[in-house]
Structures are given as structure tokens and as C-alpha cells.
């Protein structure tokens, strides 16, 4: 099967307020941004919403702004825009780097940062950046804006803290100007999701986060703490898989994933300037 989505109603929202109104009034509605997480699932009919609310035209969700100590990235900002942004490269270089490694060029041209994060896929690249840098998710609902720490955002497999009648509107990344970073993505084939990935953000509040090492995107907590307390790269890398419950699939056993997490953590730490 595959290929053809089930029928749905299509609505366009011109503003966040309008989108929230539509969300509240439609049962079983989904938001459509770039569609690069949603449309493939709809084609497989793994997801068949009754209504799609197209938010791609909402201007207030676009773009990257300098908010002093942080960069605010609108949820609809496409990976390609993030990848090419000078201001992102300067202040959150890990984000610019990883945005350039999502999927393939076609996916990066269409897929949005918000779409990728709210999908909550543990194998996706960008959640690890949010976790390693300590980003804040800005979520808007009928009651106004909520701010959620990245570490509280991913709650279960393909499930985030965004409520059914809420919209992720922006992500605030604390500036990491001049700090080192590393990202290691292990794949068998270039275009694929990471078998394991590791993001390292150096600097004052260093962080290490893991890709595809459990049912949710997660920080490598023990390793991050060890790093903050000045442990050497080998010691930190040895802790990378602590507390994880990695999946088993065609490409990797849980053991292999734990091993890769450690190897990749060391490489990412070295890339980030740690010795």
C-alpha cells in the first residue's frame, strides 16, 4: 500500500490565534507546517487526521531573531534557513551544523525546525541540539504562552509536552558564541536517520545529548555532569550510555548502540575541543 493519504478537510490559518481556534473546533485535527514528518505517515495511513490545519502561511512563526542572550527561532523556520543563517552560525553553531545534516537537501528545504521537534522522534537530529544547548520551547495555547525546557519537552515515544490545543511557536537557543561543539551521526547509508547520534555543546553549561538511544530524545545526564565537573574525554565518553534503554533493530543491537554512543561521544567531545 502506501502513497495515497486518506481524505481530510483542509483549513488554512492566517495567524496563531486562528490556528488555535481551528484546533479547538476540529476533532482529530493536525497542524501542517512543512509536512515532512506528517505527510509520509499520512501516505502510509498510519495517521489519518480528519482535518489538516495549514499553518505554513503564518508570518509570526517564521524567522530567526536575536533576543539578547538567546536566539529565537520561529517554529516554521526551515532547516535550510537555519543551516545558512549567519547569526545561527555565530551564536549557536551546533544548531547550524546539525540543521545541515537533517535528512537530505530536499528534506531540509521543506522541513521545519518546529515540525521536527514536535514530532518527538528519538531518531531525529534536532532534538539533541535542543537538549545539548538547553533550549527553551515556546508553546502557545488559548491561555497564552508556556515556556518548556527542552529536557521536559520530550515525554514519550513520538509525544511531546505540547497539548492537543497548543502550538509550538518558537524555540529559544541560549547563545553559545565562540564555544566548541561536536555532532557525530552514525549511519549505514547517508540519507538515513541516525543509528546513534551524539551532540556535544561545550562552554559554560556544557551538554551532551543522544539520538536514537531510547524511546525519547534525551540528554546523556551522567556524561554531561561529568563533563561539567571537568572529567576527561574518555571518562565522559564511558558514561554516555548510562541510564539509556536503547532500541534493538535491523541495524544495531542495544549493546552495539551503547558502544557507539560512547565512541561517538568521544569523537564529538574531541571535535568540540575537549582533550
Amino acid at each position, binding site marked *: 500500500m502506501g502513497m495515497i493519504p486518506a481524505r481530510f478537510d483542509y483549513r488554512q490559518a492566517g495567524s496563531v490565534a486562528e490556528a488555535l481556534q481551528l484546533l479547538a473546533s476540529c476533532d482529530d485535527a493536525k497542524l501542517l507546517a512543512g509536512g515532512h514528518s506528517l505527510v509520509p505517515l499520512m501516505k502510509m495511513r498510519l495517521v489519518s487526521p480528519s482535518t489538516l490545519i495549514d499553518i505554513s502561511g503564518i508570518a509570526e512563526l517564521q524567522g530567526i531573531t536575536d533576543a539578547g542572550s538567546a536566539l529565537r527561532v520561529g517554529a516554521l523556520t526551515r532547516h535550510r534557513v537555519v543551516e545558512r543563517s549567519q547569526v545561527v552560525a555565530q551564536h549557536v553553531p551546533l544548531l547550524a551544523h546539525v540543521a545541515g545534516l537533517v535528512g537530505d537537501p530536499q528534506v531540509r528545504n521543506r522541513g521545519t525546525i518546529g515540525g521536527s521537534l514536535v514530532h518527538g522522534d528519538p531518531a531525529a537530529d534536532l532534538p539533541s541540539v535542543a537538549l545539548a544547548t538547553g533550549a527553551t520551547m515556546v508553546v502557545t495555547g488559548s491561555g497564552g504562552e508556556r515556556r518548556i525546557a527542552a529536557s521536559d519537552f520530550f515525554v514519550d515515544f513520538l509525544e511531546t509536552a505540547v497539548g492537543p490545543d497548543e502550538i509550538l511557536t518558537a524555540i529559544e537557543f541560549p547563545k553559545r558564541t565562540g564555544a566548541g561543539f561536536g555532532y557525530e551521526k552514525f549511519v549505514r547509508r547517508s*540519507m538515513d536517520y541516525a543509528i546513534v547520534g551524539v551532540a556535544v555543546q561545550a562552554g559554560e553549561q556544557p551538554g551532551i545529548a543522544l539520538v536514537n538511544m531510547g524511546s525519547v530524545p534525551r540528554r546523556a545526564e551522567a556524561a554531561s555532569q561529568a563533563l561539567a565537573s571537568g572529567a576527561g574525554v574518555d571518562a565522559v565518553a564511558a558514561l554516555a550510555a548510562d541510564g539509556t534503554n536503547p532500541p534493538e533493530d535491523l541495524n544495531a543491537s542495544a549493546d552495539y548502540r551503547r558502544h557507539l554512543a560512547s565512541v561517538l561521544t568521544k569523537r564529538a567531545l574531541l571535535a568540540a575541543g575537549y582533550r
Partner: protein
Amino acid sequence: MSLIGAKVLRKEDPNLITGQGQYVDDLAPAGCSFMAVVRSTEPHARIVKVDTSAARSMDGVLAVWTAADIASLPARPASLPGMDMPLIAGDAARFVGDIVAVVVATDRYVAADAAEAVVVDYESLPAIASLGQALAPDAPMIHPVLQGNTVFFQDYTEDLTAEFDAAPRTATLSLVNNRCAPAPIEPNVVLADWGATGLTVWAAFQAPHHLRNTIAAFFGISQDTTRVIAPDVGGGFGAKINFASEIFLAAALSRAVGRPVKYTQTRSECMVAMFHGRAQEHKVDVAFDDSGKILALKVQVTQDQGAYPDATGMGLPVLTTAMAAGCYKIPKVAVSWRNVVTNTTPVAAYRGAGRPEASYMIERIIDLVADETGVDPIDVRKTNFIPADGFPYQTHSPLAVYDSGNFAGALDELLRHVDYPALKAEQAARLADPTAKLLGIGFSSWLEIAGFGPPGSLEAFGHLASWESAQVRVQPDGSAIIYTGASPHGQGTVTTFAQIAADQLGIDFDRISVRHGDTAVIPQGIGTMGSRAVAVGGEGVKTASTRVFERAKKIAAHLLEATEDDIVVENEEFHVRGTPSKSVPWSQVAWKSFQPLELPAGMEPGSLDATVFQQVPNFSFPSGAYCCVVEIDRETGEVEIRNMYLVDDCGTVINPMLVEGQVHGGVAQGIAQALYEHMQYDESGVPRTATLMDYLVPAAPDLPGYVSGRTVTLNPSNTLGAKGVGESGSVGAPPAVINAVVDALSHLGVKHIDMPATPQKIWSILRGSK
């Protein structure tokens, strides 16, 4: 100037690079309806009930069929008696992908909705997911007629106990040739239009006449009103010579609903419905001496046929065992094979079909002997090669009489490109440095049987015959149209055949068209498979062109009032040898060939038209030597191919650019089999790699660049001297890659790694060694 051997740009390309190609799914005749298929999600199950009521009641749905609706039709052609593959499964489904129902609707999207609305009630039966399960005592049975799951068993052709007992050394190797999905980027597509005056079927197919003959017999209709057209075909790799059930269903449904019916397989369907390839297990025993000289070889092949044995699939181990000795003069060879059914997708031809399995096996054995004796793999090869003056060479198999080759010559040419001593030194240095990646160097001296074939060879696979047709038809303006039965799907046949014809006819390449793929236009035909297009079909074009040219010379001689033997052609002008001024242009000869008053006595008008059914006396035997250099990450187990050196001997090269393309593509599929691709099932028979997300067809960053070389020994079975090249890369590459991987790890005592050599497998080995 001869065009044979010239890099000529392809005539095919202008359409294909501008979006003007015509693939079956591009066609949309008036009233076209769309078929969608409901497939079993169960590996083995009794079909209790198929509820089609919801689907039938949908707006735009024209028909919903289950097995009961096709009771009057035969089973899928090329099935085996008692193990027939039904077009629509009735009592039981036997693999995930087996067709359970079909729907036709006025719209592609409605057809998909209707297929989704069909509800199938299954009662699961015990399923067989692997050869091991199939051959276990008390295994469940798939076809009651079998009394087990073995369709055919051939015991060892010879008892070699004495040879093995007497041999100084022996070794044993068990290996798996991993199941692959052919995965052409265009899946199976068919458009059937059963009109008042006959049936026309457009199909993504490699052998349209073969399909026409089969469809006519299937429906009991006449071949003259049955037309099959294979327009542009988006790759086939052997899989599009299989009679996909959907072709026959679309035709039957077109008759029933009175409209054209189009079916376009989705990729997820294609992964489980288009027949797979390889899927063999080998047990190999080899006897040899301390010098690496091989004394005897025993090979037992177990072929997974999937749920329904296919006539081509049944022949795969025949080809594998025929080629078991590869390039080597092995005094005693005994072979055995067994065809076994499992609850998986049927297995049939995939690029190389039985020969990649043979070359992989024997080239692994050569490296095993090298490892056991400490003799360098190069020397083991040279010690055992059939010498260049050893042809023709009768193998252990009556099928295979090698006709030409120079295996040592190809290996020497390869070593001219590869600095083997330097690589060995680098390998040792890296081994001593724990931070360095491991280096592995792998060779294959490969040989295949191709150019199908001599009379009887394709008949054994259900084809009408083994010749290929060619018609050369000069037009009144002196241009020419070539009609070939070798219907291509990417090979560049339109270009190479025009090159061959241009040389023979003396007509400009730009004024020669090649037509193919339409049974109403092409006299008869067999098809493109088994690396036969140039070796058989191209030879036919040459023969027909020569006949036409001889007649043209007669006409020119008549017009020039000269003797035929003195006539030569240059720049599309016939003239008397030594007297260029006395000439007549090809266009005039052509024009007058249709005018009785202008012709020499006894010559009929329209005689610049010849049809040939080209036969060849033997198969062809393309060969070559490949070298693969890999680097292995000691921490992750990742294999990266650093270099790939390719020396091919395909005999005469018609167009070097196209030969290189064929080699590259075959090598890419060979590397893919060795490192990436594996069609896998879980223990219950559910496929685990049924999309292109999970089945890893490699992309550009995953494959290396190639260094190419060439040796030439001519094919004595045709006057072109061409052997065929379509399958070469897929035959030669897998053993070179795996030999390199094993070489990189041999210091750990590793003697073999099954394909694909995944990072996890290698990491497990590296970890175990610590």
C-alpha cells in the same frame, strides 16, 4: 571510419533528460481506470473471509475481485504444477504480499481507498521464514503435493570421497548469498486495454514478445490480436522478465469493466511483490595441496524459492553449479542442489541470476585456500587458472564450455593499476598502529556464463527460442530503421545497434533509428536478459545489415554499370573502387530499390529489407579481475571502500561509454549486496525490509569512484566478438569486497563474513577479539 568502439552519445537521451520519455505510468488513454491490490499481511494463513462490501459501495469503484471471480482463469504462468501461484490467493495466503483481492476504480485515489476498505479475515498457519525452518523435521508444509518443502533435489554429481581422502589438505566453508530485492526505480507497471478488436498491454517488461505469447495462451486468444508494448522501461535487472500476476489481472479486469486498466505498483508493494534474487546457501568442501593447487571441489547449493517456485527461479542453482569452478582448472568438481519453498516472496532472476552466487563462492574459496596455505591470494589464483591457451575448456558441467578468455592476463592488467606491494606495506603499518583504520585488499578473478544462448538454452526457461530477431529496413530516402526483439530497459541498445548497423550499411549513424518493444511492429523477439542483447541481438543486426548491404551493392553496381565486387561505400556514396568520381549516393540506391525499372534483372523491389533470427552456437563467457581496497573503523566496525579497480573482458567493445556504464552499475549493485542490501524476514516470515527506508539501496555518498581497465579476448560465437557486459559487475564485485573485508580482519583469525558486512557484524568480531 568504424563506429565499433567509438564513444557515441546515446540516441535515447534527448527524450529522457527532458521529461519526454514514455513510461507506462505516463500513459493515460481516455476512460482509463486504476487498479489497486490488497495483499496478504500474513506469511501463511487460511483466508477465512474477504469482505468487499464496503469497497464495492464506494463511488467510482468499478470492480472488486477475489479468488472466486477468477475461478475460470489459470494460475500465474511459469508456475510449477501443484505449486501454482494463483493470481489471487483463494484458500490460503503463502507470503506477505500474496494478492488477496483487487479493485478497479475510476480514480487512482479512490482505488487506494477501496483497497484499504477490503477486510480480510485470516486464520494464521505455521509459517516458514528460512531454509533452516523449511528443512527441519516436522516443518510445516506449504504445498501438500511436496511431502516436505523440497521441490527438487540433485545429489552430488560425483562421489569425491577418494579424492578428498587422498588430498594433503581440505577445508570447508558455509556461506549465505543474501536475498536481494532488484528494486528498479520504476516498479512493475501495466496498462491493459481490452477493446473490441483485441487486447493491448503496455508493460514495464524486458521481453514483450515472450509476454505476448504468454498472455495469448493464458486467455486462449490469438497472438495476432494480442499486442504487448514495452515503452521506456525504468530498469529491470532481471525482475521484469517475471510474469507479474498484476499484468494478467489488469487484462482480465479491462475485459470485465470495458475500460483501460492501469496498475502502478507502489514501492512498498514492489519490495514484497516483485520477485527477489539470490537467496542461496552453500556448503563447500575443497581439497588442495600446500602450494594452493586445488584438487577437488564439492559444492552443495540450497536455493530458497520463496512461496511459489518459478520456472526461472528453479534454474538458478543450475547456473550456479555449472559455474562453480570459476576461472579455475579443478580436476574434480561435484555439485549438488536443492530447491526449497518458504513463506517468502518468490525468488527468480536478479542481475546475474545464479552466476554472482557462483563467483562469490569460488572466489571466497580461493581466498580460503590462500589463508590456509599462507600462499598469496594472487598466487593461488595464478596456480589454478585455466591457461590462456586452454580454450575451449569443457567444465564439469555439460552446460558450460568456456570458449575464450585470458584470466592471468586480466589479473596482470589489474595489478598494473594496483600497487599491491605498497598496499601490503600500508596494511602492515596500519595493523601496528592501534589508532589507524584497518586496511583490507580483496581480489576476484571472475567469470560468468552469458550471451543466452545456444539453441535450447532459453527454451529451458520457458522462452520460445534462444535466437534474437533483427530486421533492417532501408527507407526510400536512404535512412534505415532497425527492428530488434531485444527490448532494452536502459542498456543503450538503440545506440549500440545503430553503431553496428552504420558500420555494415555505410549509412550515417544519425540516419539510423532503432525500434523495439512493440509486438505489432517488431517481427518476433525474445528479449533482453542474460547479457545477450549485443552478443545475440547485435550480431543479428550485423547479419541483417550485411545482407541488405550486399543487395544495395548489387543495385549500385547496376546503376554504375560496374561489377559488384568493385563497389565500395564512403560517406553514404557508393563508388567504384579507385574511381571516386563514378558514384551514386545511398539515397538514390535506396530510392531506386523500390522502382522495378531501375533494378538489376532478378531483383525484387523492396529488397533492402532483411530479417534475421540470429542464432549463436554457444553461450559467451565474460570475465575479469577486480580489486577492492577497504578501510575498517576499529571502533565502529564501519567499512569504507577506498578504491575499486575493475578490469573487464567483455570481448569487442561497441561503445566504451556504455560498457563503462554497465560495469559501474553492476559493480554498484554488487557492492550494495556485499555491504548494504539484505531482504530480511523475522522468524514468523514477516518482511523487515519492505520499504526503501529499511532496505538500503545505496546513494551517491555511499559508493566509491572506480578505476577501469580492459583486456580483450574475442567471443568466437559471433562475428562481432562481443561477449556481453550487463551482469559483469554484479558477478565480480561481491567477492572482491568481502575478500577485502576478510583480509582486513584475517589477523583475528577471521575466515569468512556473510554478506552484507554490516558495521554491527564487524564490531562483534572486533569486540570478540579484545
